[in-house]
């Protein structure tokens, strides 16, 4: 394995992690429009907090997918064609979520706006749920042929681990969203968000225990990467506790950092557990690994140069877009801006 292959494996993981961390908050906010918000105005307030950022956050997914295609095309091709219908439903959810912001802005009546808020809600629930399924499906042994084609059965897609994976990621995004709302709103909803998060964290522990059991039975993580898997799992439990305590005590920044770390650790768990393979075949001879999935050294060099130039620039203006627009929004601000728009 070359250094560049390793670097791109890391970068793909980083981009997916950033997608789940940043857009995860948007999904959580979308879910909060029904779970947290008690009325229409609060729901609109919640969506307003993510309004300027969600489309930029979503680009991390496009960048992750594009990098996968560019740096490890065999992985991209096998995974995306193998889990065809799962990815299709992810797309449908992404499409409904994606148009809901603009469409609800344009809908004339409250009923019309509400319709698109529901679209946002369902999109926000299903995107992390289905991605959670995909990430936990792809770490299991898969029926593959020598060309890397995956012929999934229903059981390869829907199984205990993947359902738990879906629940885990959905719950994590909800925590992330609640912490984000606590950081970006003023008024009662700010405290409700923290309180709700700290209560919902009780759900996390039983799910985490079940995930560990399912991981043991359905993946080879404990055989191939015993120490790192155990360490990462322990850290996940630790950051969950951290998140619960800080949201209960009103340390909003820390709570956001805690759920951010949990999501990052989840991606680390998967990417470390797979390493150096990408897709484990039932017939070990057909397994796709970083080495045989990667692009040529020339392409990797080109992509590395491009990434080295562009990523720092993106980091600067992307961070600026968050910092320059950071302010707590209250229900009163919403009334003021509505009259102007």
């Amino acid at each position: 394995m070359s250094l560049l292959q390793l670097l791109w494996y890391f970068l793909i993981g980083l981009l997916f992690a950033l997608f789940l961390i940043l857009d995860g908050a948007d999904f959580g906010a979308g879910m909060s429009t029904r779970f947290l918000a008690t009325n229409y105005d609060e729901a609109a307030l919640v969506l307003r907090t993510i309004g300027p950022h969600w489309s930029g956050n979503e680009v991390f997914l496009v960048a992750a997918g594009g990098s996968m295609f560019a740096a490890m095309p065999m992985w991209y091709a096998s995974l995306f064609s193998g889990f065809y219908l799962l990815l299709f439903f992810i797309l449908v959810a992404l499409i409904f979520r994606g148009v809901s912001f603009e469409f609800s802005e344009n809908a004339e009546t409250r009923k019309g706006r509400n319709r698109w808020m529901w679209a946002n809600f369902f999109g926000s629930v299903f995107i992390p749920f289905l991605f959670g399924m995909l990430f936990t499906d792809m770490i299991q042994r898969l029926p593959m042929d020598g060309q890397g084609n995956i012929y999934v059965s229903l059981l390869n897609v829907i199984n205990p681990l993947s359902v738990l994976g879906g629940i885990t990621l959905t719950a994590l995004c909800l925590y992330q969203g609640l912490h984000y709302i606590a950081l970006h709103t003023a008024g009662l909803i700010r405290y409700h968000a923290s309180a709700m998060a700290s209560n919902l964290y009780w759900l996390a522990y039983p799910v985490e225990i079940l995930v560990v059991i399912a991981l043991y039975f359905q993946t080879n993580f404990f055989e191939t990467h015993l120490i790192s898997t155990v360490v990462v799992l322990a850290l996940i439990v630790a950051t969950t506790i951290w998140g619960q305590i800080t949201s209960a005590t009103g340390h909003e920044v820390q709570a956001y950092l805690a759920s951010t770390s949990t999501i990052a650790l989840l991606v680390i768990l998967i990417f470390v557990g797979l390493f150096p393979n990408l897709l484990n075949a039932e017939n070990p001879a057909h397994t796709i690994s970083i080495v045989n999935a990667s692009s040529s050294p020339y392409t990797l060099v080109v992509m590395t140069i491009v990434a080295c130039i562009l990523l720092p620039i993106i980091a600067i203006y992307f961070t600026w877009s968050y910092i320059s627009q950071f302010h707590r929004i209250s229900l009163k601000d919403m009334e003021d801006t509505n009259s102007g728009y």
Partner: protein
Amino acid sequence: MLNLGLSVLPLARIQFAETTIFHFFFVPMSIGLALIVAIMETFYAVTKKPIYKTMTRFWSKIFLLSFAVGVVTGLIQEFQFGMNWSDYSRFMGDIFGAPLAIEALLAFFLESTFIGVWMFTWDKLKPGWHALMIWLVFFGSAISALWILAANSFMQHPVGYRIDPKTGHALMTSFAAILTNKQLWYEFPHVIFGALVTGGFIVAGASAWMIFRKKWPEFFRKSMRIGLTVGLIAVCGSFLTGDQQMLYLSHQQPMKFAAAEGEFQNVKSPASWTAVEIAHTNEHKADFKIEIPYLMDILTYHKLSGSVTGMNETNAKLHKKWNKQFGKNMNYYPPVNTLFYSFRIMAFGAVVLAFLAICGLWFSRKKKNTIGKQWWLTLLLTVATFGPFIINTCGWLVTERGRDPWVVYGLLPIAKAVSPSTTAGSVLFTIIIYFFLFATLGVFMFMYARKALYKGPEGVGDHESYDTEDPFSKEAFEK
């Protein structure tokens, strides 16, 4: 899943056509509208006249709707190369992935970040800085076209690659060659001009409809003139670039060129141009030809002599060249009627648009504005709103169907590109769901755009009347 006697390949092709055509309704629309909105906001930043601020906010509503639909349907594109065309992705990943990833890093981040800033900083940033945000969105979306077309150009005309003897996959040997691919520099400006035509005529056509309905005539006259100016310049630009592209095609992809002109037999110098025909692609001949002498040479070579190689001769050459590698059963004829008529609709449509733009600019000039009385023109311009969508689609049909039977010209036939693991049943299922999904998006998008239009400048909080006919002015008394 279900086996209905259907095979995956045609279904995957139908789905690709369905998703790309629908996506490409909104891509040129948002690129074009982004430029027009940026121009309007720049006018405001420079002149500080409130009408331009109202214009910016008014047209941005329609722009943002198209942007939203363009982005979500673009996600499909990113996924479907892997989902439906996994063997293509394996063959081309080393080359195709790089521009796609760069597109995301260079273009999508730029446009998506700054559109978020732009939408929420109307009152926070000074007009000049705020206008800069929308210019960044425009550059982001225009640059994205460059990268995706770099990938497409490789498929039309592969350069800077070698074939890996072990795997048979294409490997990149020169990134510079891929970026300097001649095909790309014919395609890219043509597509950008096409996008500006789209944006220009949407603004002009929608404005013309409102002028026809006698609502806020001055506001919409000004909007229409901006739209028509951009539209007219862009139509001229797309003619020039399209003309260059055809000349290039005539020797680079002679099959596509001959099919677009409907010529099975060689045409001797001086070559006549076929205006109408019915092609029988399978029998390699055409009926009902109506020809105009010399016109082919004038249009293609810009002189009065020159011959054209027909499809039949090219077909024989291609068989000779590729029979060993790809077998005798390859069919090198593209669907001739599709190409022939798509090309004519595109070119003829552009002429009509140029004519309407000149008329519109003439009748709406400030000195002698009679556009409110030219009901025929405003109605025609309204219909022309939808023209660019058809024209763009026809252009892509020529380019993409003209590459048949290749997905990567001379390297990979379409039949070998499809995902082996997908089933016909699942692709049929997704085609149907996409259809209803797109219909829903299209209907709502149109409905909301129409609603925004009918609210006029009042919809963005401007209650100025914008009426040219001041009841107390001199002209009003004289009437």
